[in-house]
């Protein structure tokens, strides 16, 4: 009795109120019922807003996208939908530009995520030392997070500019010729990755730092007693303890790279931004979707692109799961 949680029913009769005649007893019965209803319904009432908003503006549109993908819908007449079956999927799957966007998204995803997470891991390790002004360092590396995609992309557009860009000037000092960063197939992808890396490395470093500080120190003590060097401690204690966090950041960064939009749109801006460069060299799936739906005004194919993205995400998730299982098995 003493340890079990008192339920509301036990206190349905407030001790202060003196016991009275039968009518008030009936009232108390009512009250007790009300209490019980309050207890049963309140949690659902508290979580309902989240699910209502998500249902209305997240899940329903997500499913409805699939329906629209089977129709002809134009930006100029949003009310009229005409059934076309698989035509939209046919159209995008036979469009080489779509496959370019898929591979671009994938490549930019890899060259932005991998260095970003490695640097973040190293940074977290540094920040985990006892440092002077540690809050200052943490805040400084987080400032890019406060910068919007639009601002960051526009500043870097200026840095990567072919004529008069800051980077070409700096490279010129050490004897390199001017590079047209946005024009090249690899250089444009690198430029976009740099924007992503700049914005998100500090954020991920702080997440790793939090996880590192949660690693119990006994593990390090035991390792150093066994004669493990600092590097061995980092590899054999820190990294394995951080595995769930690392997996989490990989998932979040992968999803993030599927969404790259502002960076490619504004790297050159204008009409070039809407097609991801003159040869679609840095066109991502989000740009492709935007171009089809909002630039050209065909919402049907745009919806088909969205579902193609969903399929890709599911494939990536499955791959992640298999790799995770494989890694866990080989680690044991």
């Amino acid at each position: 009795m003493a340890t079990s949680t008192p339920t509301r029913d036990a206190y349905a009769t407030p001790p202060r109120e003196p016991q009275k005649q039968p009518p008030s007893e009936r009232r108390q019965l009512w009250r007790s019922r009300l209490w019980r209803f309050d207890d049963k319904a309140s949690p659902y009432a508290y979580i309902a807003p989240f699910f209502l908003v998500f249902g209305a503006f997240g899940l329903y549109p997500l499913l409805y996208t699939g329906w629209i993908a089977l129709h002809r819908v134009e930006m100029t007449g949003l009310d009229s939908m005409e059934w076309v079956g698989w035509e939209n999927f046919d159209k995008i799957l036979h469009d080489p530009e779509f496959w370019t966007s898929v591979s671009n998204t994938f490549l930019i995803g890899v060259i932005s995520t991998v260095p970003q997470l490695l640097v973040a891991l190293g940074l977290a390790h540094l920040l985990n030392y006892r440092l002077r002004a540690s809050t200052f360092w943490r805040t400084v590396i987080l400032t890019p997070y406060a910068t919007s995609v639009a601002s960051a992309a526009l500043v870097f557009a200026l840095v990567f500019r072919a004529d008069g860009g800051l980077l070409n000037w700096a490279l010129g000092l050490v004897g390199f010729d001017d590079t047209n960063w946005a024009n090249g197939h690899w250089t444009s992808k690198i430029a976009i990755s740099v924007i992503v890396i700049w914005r998100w490395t500090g954020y991920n470093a702080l997440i790793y730092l939090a996880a590192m500080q949660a690693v119990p120190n006994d593990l390090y003590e035991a390792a150093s007693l066994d004669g493990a060097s600092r590097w061995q401690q980092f590899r054999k204690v820190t990294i394995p303890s951080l595995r769930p966090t690392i997996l989490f950041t990989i998932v979040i960064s992968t999803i993030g790279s599927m969404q790259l939009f502002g960076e490619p749109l504004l790297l050159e801006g204008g009409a070039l931004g809407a097609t991801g460069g003159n040869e679609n060299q840095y066109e991502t799936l989000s740009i492709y979707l935007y171009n089809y739906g909002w630039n050209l005004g065909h919402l049907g194919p745009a919806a088909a692109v969205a579902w193609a993205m969903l399929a890709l995400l599911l494939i990536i998730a499955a791959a992640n799961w298999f790799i995770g299982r494989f890694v866990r098995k080989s680690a044991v």
Partner: protein
Amino acid sequence: MTMTSPTPTAPVKLAPASKSSAPQRPSRFRIGAGQQMKGGPFAYVALAVVGFGSLLPLYWTLVAASRTQDEVLASTPPFLPGGKLIENIQTAWEQANLGKAILNSVIVSSSITLATLFFCTLAGYAFAKMRFRGRGWLMTAVIATLTIPPQLSVVPLFMMMSGLGWGGQLESVIFPTLVSAFGVFFMRQYLIEALPYELIEAAKIDGANNLRIVVSVVLPVARPAMMVLGMLTFVQAWNDFFWPYLALNQQNPTLQVALGQLSASYTPDQSIVMAGALISTLPLLVVFVVFGKKIVGGIMSGAVKG
């Protein structure tokens, strides 16, 4: 009763005994190997390099915003701010409807922040401390929604908004973001540790109903976490680009949308674009300078650990 009462109290008495080893733990935490090694000069140099790289683009924004385009794009770029800042901001203000954009950004970000705080604290409390059927898988569902990119639903969302008469209106960017899965998760993590069951039970014994408990017990306890969540949400809402860019137009933009359109004009003047970028970044930088420590702590406490 007299016979049974000692039995349940026994574990209660045991608990402090086993806890007596707990005070040692924090101190061991401090002396231990991993966290406590002092940073050498290499650590400071490396951090300084990364810090320089983090701040340089922001400094360059200021330099470019305070000069003419010709100076910015000269063969040797300038390194100190010039005297054209006010003039460039004025031009950007006229070209991009910045006054309206700032007002819109404030309205959108504040309403999203207030709604997120309210709804996420309620849901976070329910998931942290209330017992109800389906709690486990509903929480899993909340976290799973984090993995759905907004790209997947923008097409019908756009049609819905136009159907509701919200096409190009601020409602179209406010309503889809009234709640956030991250916020629910964040408040839940905080309240699990910060809000003792005893406090809730004490309130129940005093005859408080659930709403009363939320107002008088949960909200005061949750306030520090709400501050942090509020700042994180505001930053995100202020910087949001993809959906606002699709949903809003030049006549009624948020700051980020106006900035995107400023650069998309036929031959954009880079200094003026940078002046716009500066205006859109400055408010958040001020927030970061003032509340940096809190925001850093918030991101770290919301992280997935071990």
